[in-house]
């Protein structure tokens, strides 16, 4: 039996912010009519969260959750070892409807970026308004990080979880390391010191 290994084997880096690969994460792509009852119940049954997120929202708790990818696509998160069972539940719920559910866990990597300067570091690489008032926990964004497509959400006000393709995981990790190099603070999103 081969042991599954995540893309970066748990690599981490401490600089302006902490960067760490989270390890194996179960991920299922679900495509279909997101207003259809069968699709909604397939999503909630597989992820264990009760609410299907609205446009550009994420509803994630730990390793479980749902993310809004596009008007006809959800990203379903569940523990890596629970994917087969989740997919079985989903196929049952989707029987007879025009929808698609596929295990993409091994095609992806997840990196956590955390610390008071996390917004600063990410804002160097993504064309997204990451001001504390503009991007908040609960939101979800697909964009590019330098040259690679990524998606991310915030678990709290100082930490992001970033999803990318496994093939660009090393690139994403390395480009984040450059952006988090000590001494490269920009200070754009930094809160002013109290006087």
């Amino acid at each position: 039996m081969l042991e599954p290994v995540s893309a970066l084997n748990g690599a981490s880096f401490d600089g302006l912010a902490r960067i760490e690969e989270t390890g194996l994460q179960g991920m299922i792509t679900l495509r279909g009519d997101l207003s259809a009852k069968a699709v909604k119940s397939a999503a909630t049954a597989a992820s264990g969260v009760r609410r299907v997120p609205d446009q550009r929202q994420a509803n994630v708790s730990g390793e479980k959750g749902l993310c809004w990818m596009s008007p006809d696509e959800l990203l379903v998160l569940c523990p890596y070892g629970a994917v087969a069972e989740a997919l079985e539940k989903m196929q049952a719920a989707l029987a007879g409807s025009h929808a698609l559910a596929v295990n993409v866990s091994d095609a992806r990597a997840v990196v956590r970026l955390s610390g008071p300067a996390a917004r600063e570091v990410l804002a160097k690489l993504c064309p997204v308004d990451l001001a504390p008032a503009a991007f908040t926990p609960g939101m979800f964004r697909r964009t590019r990080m330098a040259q690679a497509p990524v998606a991310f959400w915030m678990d709290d006000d100082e930490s992001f979880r970033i999803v990318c393709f496994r093939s660009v995981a090393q690139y994403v990790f390395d480009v984040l390391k450059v952006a988090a190099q000590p001494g490269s603070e920009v200070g754009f999103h930094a809160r002013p010191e109290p006087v």
Partner: protein
Amino acid sequence: MLILNCPYCGVDADETELAAGGEAHLKRHGPGSSDDEFHGYLFARKNPRGVHFERWRHAHGCGKWFHAARDTVTLEVFGTYPAQTEGPPKPILAAIEARRPGWTLD
């Protein structure tokens, strides 16, 4: 730098998040058309100084194709609209007329 609002995910997408898809609302000429029509469909494109209708794809975002109406000289964006249409919708035309009095759709 262009910023276009994607009508599918609502993101104000920076140009670097998008892929350009050329002129919008082309009529496809395929089997049964004349050589001139087919030639025009394949090769003839408008290249206006001013109002232009274009196809764009939110390539590094939700992945959807959409339309944009903009000015090729000033880069002013009049609006964006979904892909499922054969021509610019009324609110887009009104927005252009408001900013470019006398402009007509050809």
